[in-house]
């Protein structure tokens, strides 16, 4: 089922949670609402579910206005951040809940309910835990039970609020991959909320980057990562170095050093010429000799060689901290030591410069 949001706005007191958002989600899509806490992403998700009523605007399911449709009747599956499993019920009863509350006339027979529940528990690979209580499960298991419980009522739309927020990094990765496979299998229109850009990039067909109740950019992982619409998106998706600089005659100057960087994205403040420049750590190169005005001097502060890339922290000549990631071969060739004076060179000209 497709979801259409039209001019949705929601205020809590003076706080604008959602500010006039319109969004279309296709049938079968897996969409991430990505943003910091307070960006309005969870409120938007709850509005789609009908758990929150928007002040203005409408929600359409499959082209039909759902504003008057209650939560019960929306056929929306909602997985809560802390799972909200019923603690006094076994895993089996939790998953069966949605089937047991169907009015008696339409309710499946006990045998059919049992069959469906076991089918779902097999789908989430937890059939062996059917008789346990939620308190006896690990976080990852609870999450999967919550998902099975939601799927039991055959929702047309699946909404997940920070689905992996409360889990260990390792379990999170596993579940992420598992959810991706599950979605490929059952093709249900899904929207999930996350503050973890990596999660959004890995999992979603499309990412909606939100900030202060508004949408900053909508696009595939590739689009938002490589073609960010603005500095916020660039800054939010992945690590960045932030430099304060000036722009004069279309050229960027960093600190007092006149580093010239050709830049097509440069938009400086019209009067002061001040700008903020963003560069990802892996887009900076360390060289031992200056190269005209394309490099700037820096001093190595610390080196962390653990991981697929070597993370090096430097201090630029004008005092800003700079993070650089280089591969191990390059690191060995450079013979870097803390205290070494080196030069940094942006690898590509596609830097983000934002006026302040």
């Amino acid at each position, binding site marked *: 089922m497709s979801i259409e949001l039209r001019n949705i706005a929601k205020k809590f007191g003076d706080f604008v949670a959602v500010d006039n958002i319109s969004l279309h989600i296709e049938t079968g899509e897996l969409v991430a609402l990505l943003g910091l806490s307070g960006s309005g992403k969870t409120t938007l998700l709850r509005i789609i579910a009908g758990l929150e009523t928007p002040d203005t605007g409408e929600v359409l399911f499959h082209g039909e206005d759902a504003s008057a449709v*209650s939560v019960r009747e929306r056929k929306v*599956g909602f997985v809560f951040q802390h799972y*909200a499993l019923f603690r006094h019920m076994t895993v089996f009863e939790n998953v069966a809940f*949605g089937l047991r509350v169907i009015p008696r006339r339409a309710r499946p027979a006990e045998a059919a309910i049992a069959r469906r529940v076991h089918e779902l528990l097999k789908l989430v690979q937890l059939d062996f835990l059917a008789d346990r209580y*939620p308190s006896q499960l690990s976080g990852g298991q609870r999450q999967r039970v919550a998902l099975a419980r939601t799927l039991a009522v055959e929702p047309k739309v699946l909404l997940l609020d920070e689905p992996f927020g409360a889990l260990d990094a390792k379990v999170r990765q596993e579940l992420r991959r598992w959810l991706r496979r599950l979605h490929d299998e059952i093709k249900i229109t899904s929207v999930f909320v996350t503050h973890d850009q990596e999660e959004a990039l890995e999992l979603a067909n499309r990412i909606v980057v939100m900030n202060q109740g508004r949408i900053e950019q909508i696009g595939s992982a590739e689009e938002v990562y490589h073609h960010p619409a603005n500095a916020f998106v660039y800054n939010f998706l992945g690590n960045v170095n932030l430099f304060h600089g000036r722009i004069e005659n279309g050229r960027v100057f960093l600190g007092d050093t006149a580093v010239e960087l050709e830049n097509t994205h440069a938009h400086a403040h019209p009067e002061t010429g001040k700008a903020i420049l963003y560069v990802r750590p892996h887009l900076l190169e360390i060289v031992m000799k200056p190269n005209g005005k394309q490099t700037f001097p820096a001093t190595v502060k610390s080196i962390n060689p653990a991981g697929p890339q070597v993370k090096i922290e430097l201090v630029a000549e004008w005092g800003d901290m700079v993070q650089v990631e280089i591969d191990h071969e390059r690191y060995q060739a450079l013979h870097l030591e803390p205290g070494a004076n080196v030069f940094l060179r942006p690898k590509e000209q596609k830097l983000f410069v934002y006026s302040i």
Partner: protein
Amino acid sequence: MATNTKRNNVLPGFGLTLGFTLAYLGIVVLIPISTIFFKTFTLTWPQFWAAVASPRTIAAYRLSFGASIAGALVNSVFGFIVAWSLVRYEFPGKSLIDVMVDLPFALPTSVAGITLTAIYAGNGWIGRYLAPLGIKVAYAPLGVAVALTFVGLPFVVRTIQPVLEDLDQEYEEAAATLGASRLQTFVLVIAPALIPALLTGFALAFARALGEYGSVVFISGNMPMHTEVVPLLIMSKLEQFDYAGATAIAVVMLTVSFVILLGVNMLQRWSSRRLAA
């Protein structure tokens, strides 16, 4: 789940605190109560039996336990509603109502008894409208139940309130998204989560009502065989210097209450164990 008894605590002092607990309970609870038993042992079996099983005593047991259970049950239902509205809704005067709940704790029970009697007597504010309907509250068993309901109310409200505050609204939302009606959500999701607290509240209100004396003497009229509660019967035995007879009845009361409270306690533990997160 296996618990390790020799766990290393950050704060030492298990021996000290347990010793203190035992000494304290011994002085405050056990020694006074044991004297009741010792006094009772001065009776022979036939004397004991005559004291605890006379028709007048049996009638008093029946009224005391019956009215206490009735009062605790009424409180469980209405105390729950009071706790619910205090936790779930914001309304003007909320903190005032919150304070009012504690009034039965603070009010001298005799004052409560006199007030209730004045209101429910045949010519009182409420009693005058009930009398034509043939409902007699003051000087009747019903009056005893009313007084015992009054003194027990805070227990139920105050035990349910914190549990209800902790009960995340997410559970109700989850039930709603799964298609449950409001009634189903309440019966299947909310009520089971509150049962341990409700049982505790019930047990406390019941125990409080069993021992209640001050408010009951005024509203009941104290007619033997009819509106005489056990604490009053004990009092009148004492006034006749029948100390052993009084303690014998007390022993029976004590034993039965202990068994009932133990039962409720075990029920409460059993139901809360499943909820342990």
